């Protein structure tokens, strides 16, 4: 996903001389090379200084530049939180803060490198926009959207090697709207970010049970497409949320709130990271599993509801 981001940024920079990127000693190195070679003065490494990265980006954007700040998600969201709040959101300055390795993508590096509650804390900020694409293709569309938005944006990316999930999507990426990747009549899975691949695995198993499944990429977490979610709650008997984010303040919590307010009749099951720091290392899947997020666990819970004969 970081390579997809870097490629689009380079393309954008070629036609728009106001595109700049400010990094805090983290960069999608190889894929960023063309940008750095062609526009060395528009790639700024401030060093290990995230607060100044965000403050500087605010000042640059106030002068009309189109600026992207880039570093590891945990360092992009937490260390300079007050700069994001005061310099970007309070003043409503259009800077895109790119967090690479959202969730637990840095799965061997421990909790200091995990962003498992980034969406919760950044969603709480007025004026903030949050986008979390699910694959490299959607990352391209999301990056384009970021370059056009007039608000601060947090672009939450995975890292590298994510599979393509949206090549056969039913709908194109549209900022602020749910995106149906496939459509069914029984179960609807709402997801975002790289863990969306688990939604496809779960759907595959359900399809073997003769259930038809919708899969939706909820790439825009703020502003959330509430009416779209209300519609999916109406049109499916089971709605599932799978997310690589804490159960506190992520998509699951919001969908529950929308379901309650909208008096939804469907069964709603949510699968999020636990509200816990789990000291475990391995592949992202190993950490997901430790949080109860695996295809088997999720499928078992959903199929149990069918075995119990609900609806």
């Amino acid at each position, binding site marked *: 996903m970081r390579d997809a981001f870097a490629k689009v940024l380079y393309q954008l920079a070629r036609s728009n001389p106001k595109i700049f990127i400010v990094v805090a000693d983290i960069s999608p190195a190889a894929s960023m090379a063309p940008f750095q070679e062609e526009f060395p003065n528009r790639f700024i490494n401030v060093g290990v200084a995230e607060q100044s990265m965000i403050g*500087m980006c605010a000042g640059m954007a*106030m002068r009309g530049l189109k600026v992207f700040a880039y570093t590891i998600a945990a360092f992009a969201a937490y260390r300079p939180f007050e700069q994001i709040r005061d310099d970007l959101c*309070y003043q409503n300055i259009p800077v895109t803060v790119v967090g690479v390795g959202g969730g637990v993508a840095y799965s061997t590096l421990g909790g200091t490198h995990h962003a498992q509650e980034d969406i919760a804390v950044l969603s709480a900020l007025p004026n903030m926009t949050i986008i979390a694409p699910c694959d490299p293709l959607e990352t391209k569309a999301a990056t384009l959207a970021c370059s056009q938005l007039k608000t601060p944006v947090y672009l939450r990316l995975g890292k590298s090697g994510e599979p393509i999930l949206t090549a056969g999507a039913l709908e194109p990426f549209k900022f602020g709207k749910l995106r149906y990747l496939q459509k069914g009549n029984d179960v609807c899975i709402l997801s975002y970010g790289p863990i969306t691949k688990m939604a496809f695995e779960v759907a595959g198993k359900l399809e073997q049970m003769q259930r038809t499944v919708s899969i939706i990429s909820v790439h825009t977490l703020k502003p959330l497409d509430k009416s779209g979610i209300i519609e999916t709650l109406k049109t499916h008997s089971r709605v599932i949320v799978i997310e690589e984010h804490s159960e506190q303040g992520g998509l699951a919590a919001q969908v529950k709130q929308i379901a309650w307010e909208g008096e939804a009749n469907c069964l709603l099951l949510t699968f999020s990271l636990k509200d816990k720091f789990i000291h475990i290392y391995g592949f992202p899947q190993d950490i997901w599993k430790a949080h109860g997020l695996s295809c088997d666990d999720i499928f078992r819970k959903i199929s149990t509801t069918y075995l119990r004969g609900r609806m």
Partner: protein
Amino acid sequence: MVDDTGKQRCIKYRKRILQLSLKLGALHIAPAFSCLEIIDAIYHKLMRHDGNFPPEFLDTFILSKGHGALAQYVVLESLGILPESELNNLCTPTGKLGGHPDYGVPGIEASTGSLGHGLPIALGMAFADKALGIDRKVYLVMSDGEMQEGSVWESMLIAPNLGVDNLMVIVDQNDFQVLDRVSKINPNFYPILDKIRAFGWGVVEVDGHHSESICHATRLKAIQRPLMVIAKTVKGKGVSFMENSSIWNFRSPSREGYELAIKELDGGLK
């Protein structure tokens, strides 16, 4: 622009601030008094403008020590950028002006109040101006107490790398923070000058209540480097009982105190 000497203007500003303070229980008077000559010099002497009244400035000023807002408001009032009525409505629901500068208010280029935010923003602006080939200077006032924030040191390290010789930082060194003297809490912070020089900035020390010295120092051009002017000031300057006293960081005088202060100011700035 306005035919008035800096010294006379600063007496008027102090009286105006005291007058405003009568309506409100608590205001940051003393931190405004310490940087009045600096802010007056920036607006009336240093920043380039179109010559109209109210002027349109080519250069930019940011008050990073946002709690000195009163000083900026009264100077903006003297320039006709903020109307008298707006200052009279200070900190009320019918007005636009609060206790700290807010972006979007005429003359205010950044929302400050939380310390350590101004320098990175000013650095970004100065860098952008250079990148866009715009001849514009960015003036920033921060306080010595504010310099305890880590973001200030980050930006002090970064700024010389970017060749921003259009960035002029003036430090209001009044040696006070909320609870005590800065030099008592962090004795190793002083002298500041050596540390800034070691970071690769052009740096000079001046009397922060002497307008000509401030202007002279700030006009020095450091080659391809940002400039920091360490302006030695007195917190509460101009009213003897407010000077160098922590309690006047956030307090308004009584009616009697007000009369006493006005009398002293009418006697001329010491």
